[in-house]
C-alpha cells in the first residue's frame, strides 16, 4: 500500500482525517479477518482431529499388547512341532536392602530357612550392603514365592521375568544351545538365530528345526548307554536325511542341561559333532574306493591288489588288523578293512585327484551348517605320497562327525553333496544347492560294498535285522604328542539304511572307549559302536517310515563272487 504521504499532498484537515480512519478501518478489517481465519483454522484442525480419532482412533479403555500373544523370544520346535525351547514367565525373588523395614537378622534367618542355598550370614551381609539390588533367586518355584510373600517384607521384591525354558532338558542340548541372563543366545541355534528369535515381527512364529525329538532321544539314549558301558570320555552321533541334508538328530556327550548351562563343564558344553575334529580312520575307506571307481582306477569290484602283511612306504609301515598275505579284491579290502589295500588305491589315485575329491565333498573346508560352532578341518600340509596313502584310510586328516555324515550322504544319495541343515526343509526353506561329487553308478556300486561290510565283514554287529543297514567301521588311534597313542582310540561307524534304497545316514562315534569283557577285550568299532547303530536303527527306522523287510537286500551278486575265502577272524 503506497498511501500518499501527508507531506506531499496538502489536503484539508477533515479529508485527511476521513482518509486516515478509512485506512485504519481497512487495516482492522484485515487483522480481524486474519484472526478469524486462524481461529477457524485451529477449530477446524481440532474438529478434524476429533473426527479422525472418532473414526480410526482407539478408545480410552484399550489395553495394548494383550490382544496378541507374542513371546519375548520365539519358540524353537522340532520337525513335528514339539517344543524344544520356550520363553515363559518365571518368578524372581529380589532383595532391595535399603527398603527393608523389619528386623534384618530375623529376615536373614527366615530367608536362610526358605532358600537354603545361602546361609543366614550371607543374607545378613547382603542386607547391610550398599548395593541397591540383589537377585535372590530366578526361576523360583511357586511354593517358595508364596512363602517369601508371606514374610510381608517390602524390601523383598517378587516379580515375573521372561525366562528361557528347555522342556526336554538335555535333549538336543548342543543343537539348541542356550541363552545368557539377558536372553540372548550364546550357543547353538539360540546363537545362530538370535536375531530371528528376538525380532518382534518374526518371533511369534516358532523356529522349526529339522530335529525329530523321538529320533534324537533314541540316539542319545543308546549312545549314552554305550558310552557308560565302555567308559568313553565322550561320544557324538548324527542322523541325517541323505536327500535333503536335514539333520534329524545330532548329539554330543557328555550331556548338557541347557536350563543350567553354566553348571555344565566345558567338556559338556563342547559340541563334538560340529566342533570336534577327529581322525576317523577306516570309515574313510569307502570314500577312497568310491574315488577310485569314479576316477577309473578301479574298474570292477573284483579288481585285485597285492595285500602283503605290511607295506613299506618311504620309511613308514602300513599294516592290517586282519592281514591277507595274498592278493585280495576290492570287495575283500572293504570287507576286512584293509589298510594295505586302500593305501594302494589311494596311491594310484594320486594327490591331485584325492585332494580335488576331498575338496568337492567339503572335507577341506569348514563345516557348512547353521550353527556357529563350526570346526576347521585338519589336513596334511604338503600332501606327500605317504600322506596320500594315510589319508586313503582316514588318518592324517581330521574332520567332524557331521562332515562324515555329510560325506556318506553324498556317497549314497547318487553322488550329490548338499549342505547339512538344521532347519526343516519345507516351503520356506528349500533344499540347499548341491554339487555332484560322485557318479550315480559309483554311488550305486557302493551300496553292495557297504552292505557286505555289515553282512560279512567288520560291522556285523551293526546289522538291524530287516532294516538293511550298510556301513563301515572305523577305529583310529588318537594323536598323543608327536605320534599315535596305542591305548586311546576313536571308534566310529558310518551307516546307511535301508541300503537297497538309501534314505538315512547314521554316524556314531565314541571317544576313548575302553575294552570290556563284552567286547572280548577289543577296542575296535565293530565291538563298541556298531551295536549302538543296530539298536538305534531298530528303534528309529519304524518312526521314519522304513518298513523292515527281511526279503529285500542290496544287489549282493555284484560283490559276493569276489570274496575268495573265509578269512581268519
Amino acid at each position, binding site marked *: 500500500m503506497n498511501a500518499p504521504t501527508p507531506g506531499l499532498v496538502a489536503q484539508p484537515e477533515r479529508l485527511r482525517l476521513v482518509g486516515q480512519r478509512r485506512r485504519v478501518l481497512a487495516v482492522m478489517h484485515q487483522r480481524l479477518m486474519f484472526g478469524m481465519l486462524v481461529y477457524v483454522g485451529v477449530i477446524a484442525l481440532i474438529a478434524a482431529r476429533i473426527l479422525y480419532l472418532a473414526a480410526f482412533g482407539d478408545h480410552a*479403555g484399550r*489395553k495394548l499388547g494383550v490382544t496378541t500373544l507374542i513371546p519375548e523370544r520365539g519358540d524353537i520346535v522340532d520337525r513335528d512341532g*514339539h517344543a524344544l525351547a520356550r520363553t*515363559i514367565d518365571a518368578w524372581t525373588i529380589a532383595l532391595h536392602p535399603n527398603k527393608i523395614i523389619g528386623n534384618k537378622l530375623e529376615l536373614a534367618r527366615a530367608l536362610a530357612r526358605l532358600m537354603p542355598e545361602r546361609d543366614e550370614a550371607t543374607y545378613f551381609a547382603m542386607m547391610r550392603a550398599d548395593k541397591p539390588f540383589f537377585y535372590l533367586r530366578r526361576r523360583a518355584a511357586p511354593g517358595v514365592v508364596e512363602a517369601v510373600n508371606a514374610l510381608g517384607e517390602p524390601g523383598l521384591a517378587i516379580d515375573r521375568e521372561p525366562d528361557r525354558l528347555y522342556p*526336554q*532338558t538335555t535333549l538336543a542340548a548342543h543343537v539348541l544351545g542356550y541363552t545368557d541372563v539377558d536372553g540372548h543366545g550364546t550357543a547353538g541355534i539360540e546363537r545362530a538365530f538370535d536375531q530371528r528369535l528376538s525380532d518382534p515381527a518374526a518371533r511369534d512364529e516358532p523356529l522349526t528345526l529339522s530335529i525329530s*525329538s523321538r529320533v534324537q*532321544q533314541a540316539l542319545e539314549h543308546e549312545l549314552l548307554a554305550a558310552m557308560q558301558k565302555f567308559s568313553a570320555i565322550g561320544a557324538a552321533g548324527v542322523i541325517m536325511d541323505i536327500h535333503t541334508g536335514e539333520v534329524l538328530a545330532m548329539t554330543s556327550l557328555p550331556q548338557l542341561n541347557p536350563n543350567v548351562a553354566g553348571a555344565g563343564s566345558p567338556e559338556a558344553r563342547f559340541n563334538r559333532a560340529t566342533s570336534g575334529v577327529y581322525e576317523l580312520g577306516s570309515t574313510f575307506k569307502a570314500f577312497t574306493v568310491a574315488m577310485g571307481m569314479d576316477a577309473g582306477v578301479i574298474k570292477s569290484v573284483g579288481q585285485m591288489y597285492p595285500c602283503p602283511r605290511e607295506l613299506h612306504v618311504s620309511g613308514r609301515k602300513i599294516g592290517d588288523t586282519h592281514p591277507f598275505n595274498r592278493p585280495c579284491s576290492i570287495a575283500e579290502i572293504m570287507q576286512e578293512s584293509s589298510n594295505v589295500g586302500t593305501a594302494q588305491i589311494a596311491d594310484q589315485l594320486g594327490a591331485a585327484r584325492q585332494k580335488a575329491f576331498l575338496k568337492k565333498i567339503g572335507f577341506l573346508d569348514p563345516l557348512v551348517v547353521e550353527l556357529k560352532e563350526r570346526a576347521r578341518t585338519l589336513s596334511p600340509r604338503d600332501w606327500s605320497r605317504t600322506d596320500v596313502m594315510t589319508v586313503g584310510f582316514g588318518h592324517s586328516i581330521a574332520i567332524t562327525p557331521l562332515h562324515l555324515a555329510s560325506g556318506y550322504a553324498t556317497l549314497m544319495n547318487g553322488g550329490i553333496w548338499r549342505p547339512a541343515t538344521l532347519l526343516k526343509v519345507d516351503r520356506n526353506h528349500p533344499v540347499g544347492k548341491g554339487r555332484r561329487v560322485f557318479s550315480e553308478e559309483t554311488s550305486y556300486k557302493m551300496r553292495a560294498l557297504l552292505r557286505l561290510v555289515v553282512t560279512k565283514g567288520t560291522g556285523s554287529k551293526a546289522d538291524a535285522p530287516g532294516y538293511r543297514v550298510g556301513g563301515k567301521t572305523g577305529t583310529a588311534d588318537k594323536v598323543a604328542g608327536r605320534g599315535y597313542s596305542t591305548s586311546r582310540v576313536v571308534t566310529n561307524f558310518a551307516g546307511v539304511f535301508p541300503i537297497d534304497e538309501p534314505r538315512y545316514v547314521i554316524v556314531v562315534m565314541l571317544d576313548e572307549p575302553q575294552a570290556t569283557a563284552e567286547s572280548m577285550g577289543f577296542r575296535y568299532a565293530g565291538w563298541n559302536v556298531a551295536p549302538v547303530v543296530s539298536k538305534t536303527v531298530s*528303534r528309529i527306522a519304524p518312526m521314519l517310515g522304513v518298513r*523292515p523287510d527281511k526279503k529285500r537286500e542290496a544287489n549282493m551278486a555284484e560283490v559276493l563272487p569276489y570274496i575268495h575265502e573265509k578269512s581268519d577272524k
Partner: protein
Amino acid sequence: MSAHGFKSLFMAASVAGAALGCYLVSLNVASERAKLEQVEGKIVLAQRDIRLLQTEIGTRGRLAQLERWNAGFIRLSAPTADQFLEGGFQLATMVKPAPKPAIEAPIVLASAPTGQGVARQPSTSDSDEAKPGAATRTRAPSAQDMMHIASYERPTAKPTAIAPVKAPLLAKPVAVKPRSAKTVAATAMKVASADSLAPLPAAKPPAKATALASGKTRETGTPQ
C-alpha cells in the same frame, strides 16, 4: 410468522438430534468393541495359561523321563522285523477261525416221506392256506413237503419239527436262516434244478436243504 420463525429452530433441533443419534450409535459400537476386546484379552490370557500348562506337562512328560520309565519299569524294546505285517491279508493269515463242529452238525436231508408225514404237517402252520391238509393230501407230499431245512444248530434243544413246517411257506421267501450265505443258496439252486424231486428253482430257502442232500443218499425217516 411464528411457524416460519421456529423453522430454523426445528432444523437446528433435528440436526442436533441426528448428531446425537450418530454419536450414540458410535458410542454403542465403541462399547461393543471394548467388550469384544475384553473377550479377546481373556482368550489371550487363557491361551497363555494353556501354553504354560502345556509347557509344564511337556516338561514333566519329557522324553528322557518316559525313557527312564520305559527302561526301568515297562521294559519295552523295539519291535523286531517279524512283528511288522504287510497288511490286512497277512494279519488275516495269522488268525485261524475257531474250529466249528460243522461236521457233527445234523444234516437233515430232503426226503420223500412214506406217508405218515402228511398228518403232522398243518398242525403248527401259520400259513394262510385254507385247507393245508387237503392240499398236501391230494398229490402226495408235494415237493415242498419233502423239503427240510438243514442247519448247523444241534437238534437237541429245538425239535426239528419246525423245519418241515416252515418249509412249505414257499410263497413268501421266509428267511429261515438269516445266516445262510448267498453263495450257498446259489449253488443250492443249481443242484436243486438237477434233482427231480426238488422244488421249483425259485424256491430259495428250501433249496439249501437239497443242496446239502444232493451229495448223499436219500434218507427216508425225518427226525420227528
